């Protein structure tokens, strides 16, 4: 339990990280460091996107599975680490 806390805290304190969200399979944000409205927005959108990405990868090759999803935008990078049950979302400002 404490290790989970420690891990998440360590992630949050990395250079450039803006926010961290843990989402469950139903799309409910379990842990978040951002405000509610932002969290809800990110969760809703990224959950769908991750599902889509995963189904795309598996469509092409059923043996394959989505390992990691990175969306680099002009302002920052959104990284999604998927799992069967949960989703870990981190928003970071990459070093320029």
């Amino acid at each position: 339990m404490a290790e989970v806390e420690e891990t998440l805290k360590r992630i949050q304190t990395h250079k450039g990280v803006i926010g961290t969200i843990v989402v469950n399979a139903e799309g409910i944000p379990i842990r978040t460091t951002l405000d509610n409205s932002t969290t809800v927005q990110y969760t809703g959108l990224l959950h769908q996107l991750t599902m889509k990405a995963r189904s795309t990868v598996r469509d092409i090759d059923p043996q394959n599975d989505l390992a990691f999803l990175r969306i680099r935008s002009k302002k920052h990078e959104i990284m999604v680490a998927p799992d069967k049950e949960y989703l870990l979302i981190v928003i970071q400002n990459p070093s320029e």
Partner: protein
Amino acid sequence: MEIVHVYTKKRNEFGRQCNFSDRPAELHVDILPDPSLASNFIERDPCDIPIQCTQEMSEHEVNTERFESDTRGINHVEGGWPKDVNPQEMEQTIRFRKKVEKDEHYFSTIMQLGSNMEHCIKQNNAINIYQEYFEEEEVVEESEEQPSAKTINVFRDPNEIKRTATCLSWHPDGSCKLAVAYSSLGFQNISPDMSYDSYIWDIENPNKPEMTLKPVSLLVCLEYNPKDSHILVGGSYNGQIAYWDTRKGSQPVEMSTIEHSHRDPVYKVIWLQSKTGTDTFSASTDGQVLWWDIRKMSEPTERLVLDPNKKGNLDNALGAISLEFETTMPTKFMVGTEQGLVVSCNRKAKTPAEKIVCTYSGHHGPIYALQRNPFFPKNFLTVADWTARIWSEDIKESSIMWTKYHMAYLSDGCWSPVRPSVFFTVKMDGTLDVWDFLFKQNDPTLSLKVCDEALYSLRVQDNGRFLACGSQLGTATLLEISPGLCTLQRNEKALATAMFERETKREKILEARHREMRLKERSRSEQSKDEDTKEGDGEESVEELATRTEAEFYEIVEAELKKRAKEQEKKRPVLWSGIDLEVEDPSWSGVVCQSIIELSLLSLHAISTLSSLIWYPSCRLILT
């Protein structure tokens, strides 16, 4: 409010009512066929019936239904919460979250995902994977592509009898239209069926001209007014000037009167820069340059006779073939003549004698094109005989740069409006040459065969990208040239300036040297004149010079003929033939035989000299 009209009609005026009743069918008329009537008719044999067997076509129109699109947004609200948890209540949500966090699966998953995520975060922090390397270095802009030109559209003369496209003019705004003047420049080559029309083409539609201009006589030149894109002025074959307004139709709005117009075809007409935008001037081979105001075409506003002796004598005048006018120098203009001279004139001179400022000689034939370089107005391009020459205003004796003598006559040329070192020429063998003298001086950078017949006119569009050329059969071809030839290169202006200056300096030095040498000659001949006065003139008079050159000429001709005869001798085929005379009867005297032989030899010899054979006839007398 009801609009009601009431009228009455009596019942007995309706007429009797119709009473219908049923009754069986009755045969009224039965006409039986009567074969005797057939004698009034003759059977037609053969019967000529046209039948058409074609595909049946039908025309359909389809208009798709309008596709309506709508923009929508999504309002995110929290969801996914299990039924028993109310998302608004803080307590419940917190409790739920805590429950999830206690899950064992949650623990392991987060550890694993966390390590993945950390790896990526560190990666991001370590290096910027999208960094542009070597961004500060300037991108090398030299386009490696070969210069090329592509034909975009071909506009053919729709008439049966093809005329030459002698002049092209682009529409001043946007260059979406091209006016082409058609005429026949051959001497007395106009047939009565030849149509006089000239056309304005829309460059997108080569099938049919957008507008027809109907002059009284064939148009030799045509120009759009740069200020008003609806007005065109044209010079015609019979010497008259006419102007059209495209809004008013195909007939010219006004034509100049015949008495005051040119006596020869008007070869060039140019619009002048003026407040009213209605001034033009025209040039023709009758030796006159006339100024017109199109509002009053009955008479030219000014007249200039191109007499090199500056006396205004029309008999001495040089025929003008091309005109040049640059709007940045409104008082000066240049005229290219049939005799190969370029005459530079000043419009604002007080007396006609002062109008002609100077002449430039150097060409052997009529100057078909004359244009100042748009970037360097002191230098101008002339296209005549078999060369194109670039001149500097200061050097009057010769051009500063010239192309080699080509195999075919050059008929038109112009500068590129975007690049100072590029110019185009067209030749009588149907080729278009693009010259870039900063790249290559001896040959054209690009030589393209546009068509099989001779090209007579050329015009570049203002953006330098498209050009149109007109051919002998009235075909106007629209070409697009590669971007390398129409984008200004780095340092181009500086390099072109340097080149022009260098060539001008060289010519100046040569001119100075020539002058020195001539001066020396003159002083030397004067000295010899003083020494022996009995000898006569050191200088030859014109007649002596003429006889001397004539004698020299004949000598050369004789020598050539002799040389050719000798060559022919060597080449002549040799024929050996013989005649054997067998004489059985010895009673024939030797004298008779000899005379027979001589006669036959003579005839053979005569035949041999008539034909160019070397014939060695031989004759043998055999006595048996």
